[in-house]
């Protein structure tokens, strides 16, 4: 065991000189961008679903909840088939680019943001909306204050979305292709190194991935804790 960890450190050191920084930054970039876009789509959509009553609302929520459990590899397959040269969106020339990875990861993360936003706002007392409107809030002001009120569970939604995309490998592999200097990220590197039998390097990369996820979540948790004290 000791030797394995020592080997991992050594392998990582040889990696550092070459690709580690690049791979880590691309991981952060793709996951960060995908999370941000998911938030832009998911927060308004989730808010609308949480605050509006319509006939097929239950069915819609079931779809969203299913979406939260989408297998990344299936999403990858779907996006790849769309973006392949011969696919309907092949003309965009996006296959095997970071942009394609962002698209796939948005499809994975957006339902999570929608679903958890519905849950977060659903926890608030429904009369709070009446109270805010009764104090003269416009619709937009009301939504903004409801978000502030539900900031803790909304942060949890953000963490869940980021966590799902940074750790995801299936879709990144299928639409990104794990091309060195272009679409190679931490998770696809781990698959590659493992495939090559370079277990030490794979473990080293795994540790970096874990550390990254930990740092981002620690920052968000810190923000959450601060929010709780108010």
């Amino acid at each position, binding site marked *: 065991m000791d030797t394995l960890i020592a080997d991992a450190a050594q392998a990582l050191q040889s990696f550092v000189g070459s690709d580690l920084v690049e791979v880590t930054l691309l991981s952060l970039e793709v996951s960060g961008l995908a999370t941000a876009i998911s938030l832009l789509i998911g927060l308004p959509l989730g808010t609308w679903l949480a605050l509006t009553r319509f006939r097929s609302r239950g069915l819609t929520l079931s779809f969203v909840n299913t979406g939260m459990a989408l297998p990344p590899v299936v999403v990858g397959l779907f996006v790849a088939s769309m973006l392949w040269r011969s696919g309907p969106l092949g003309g965009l020339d996006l296959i095997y680019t970071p942009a394609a990875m962002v698209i796939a990861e948005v499809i994975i993360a957006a339902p999570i943001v929608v679903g958890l936003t519905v849950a977060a706002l659903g926890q608030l007392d429904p009369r709070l909306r009446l109270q805010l409107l009764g*104090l003269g809030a416009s619709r937009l002001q009301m939504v903004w204050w409801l978000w502030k009120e539900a900031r803790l569970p909304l942060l949890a939604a953000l963490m869940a979305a980021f966590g799902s995309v940074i750790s995801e490998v299936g879709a990144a592999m299928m639409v990104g292709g794990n091309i060195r200097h272009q679409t190679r990220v931490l998770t696809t590197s781990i698959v590659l190194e493992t495939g090559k039998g370079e277990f030490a390097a794979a473990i080293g990369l795994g540790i970096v991935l874990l550390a990254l996820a930990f740092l981002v979540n620690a920052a968000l948790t810190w923000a959450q804790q601060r929010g709780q004290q108010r």
Partner: protein
Amino acid sequence: MTGAARPGPSASPTPLVEVHDLVVMRGARAVLAVEELGVSEGETLSVVGPNGAGKSTLLLALASLIRPQSGRLLLRGTPVERRDELAYRRRVGLVLADPLLLGASVFANVACGLRFRGVRDDEVRTRVAHWLDRLGIGHLRDRPARQISSGEAQRVSLARALVLEPDLLLLDEPFASVDAVTRAKLLDDLEGLLDETHVGCVIVTHDLDEAVRLGDRMAVLVEGRLRQCDAPERVLSAPLDEDVAAFVGAETRLPGRVVSTHEGIALVDVGPCQIEAVSDVRPGRAVLCCLRPEDVTLWSVDGRGLLAGEVARRLSGTPRTSAAAAPPRLASSARNQLPGRVSRTVSQGSLMRVGVDCGIPLVASITRASAADMDLQEGGRVIATFKASAVHLIPLTG
């Protein structure tokens, strides 16, 4: 007719806020149907009624927070259209039964309505400070709103509405979530504030005392319908129908028929006996005799005391329901004197509610001290007396 005011337009020519032909449906059921109700500048209108009567729905409609199926909402005579709703809501301050404070400081909570209106920071600070002090919660300014007591929270909720200096203050059971002592103190303060600010106010409550104390007028809602709207004293003394009578505490309600009227006194046959009432209802009319328990005086027959022995002696040998021999009368100005037996007693704090079977069931409210003095026992003989003016007659249709 008894001459009691019908629900109708309020006294002032142009009310501050009024609703016309308001109907709110829930499914196929009309939970609220009010023809006309208004509140004038500086007036406090209390809205009372049993649970599920539609009181809160009415308040939300007045706040323009629900869209009724039909009806008009008018501000100073001008209809509030859909596009004016936000402007209208910004003239209103709403306080709900639960304070529903935001997870922020007390200051931020009180300031939020001003923030909605885009009021400048320095003005926000001055106005919030003023109202926090006015409600005696200045020291809580920087405390997290979730960590204060329920009484303090309701003060924050009141400050949050009053800081807006609204034209109309809408209060939905504002004291429902606080204990009796806090409630009394809050009620005192609110009464002072309403006098002082001269703000128009609608207060929904199921507490009759609160409604009578705060209201310039009192509206009684039963099953979504406005049954009566009048000065609180009028509603208490002259309820328009049986539901209102029951709600305002006329516990004795006896159906009968007017036998004769003489010099403004109606003689009503209620079956086993006859009751005299000050009323101009014409003979032959079916009526409901309403009597409040505090208007009934009990005289002990079996117990100790000056008259007891004498009355007992004269009562014995006189069958209670005999029409031939008139029962002995006390030398009293109370026109109605009915001998009976105590059927049940229920303690209510310092008061005691006493059920008396006089052939007809009566309810009296007496102090515990009186009950002790009279040595009142269940089954004991008493004479129940009440004045003709204490009986209110409601003409029944049919």
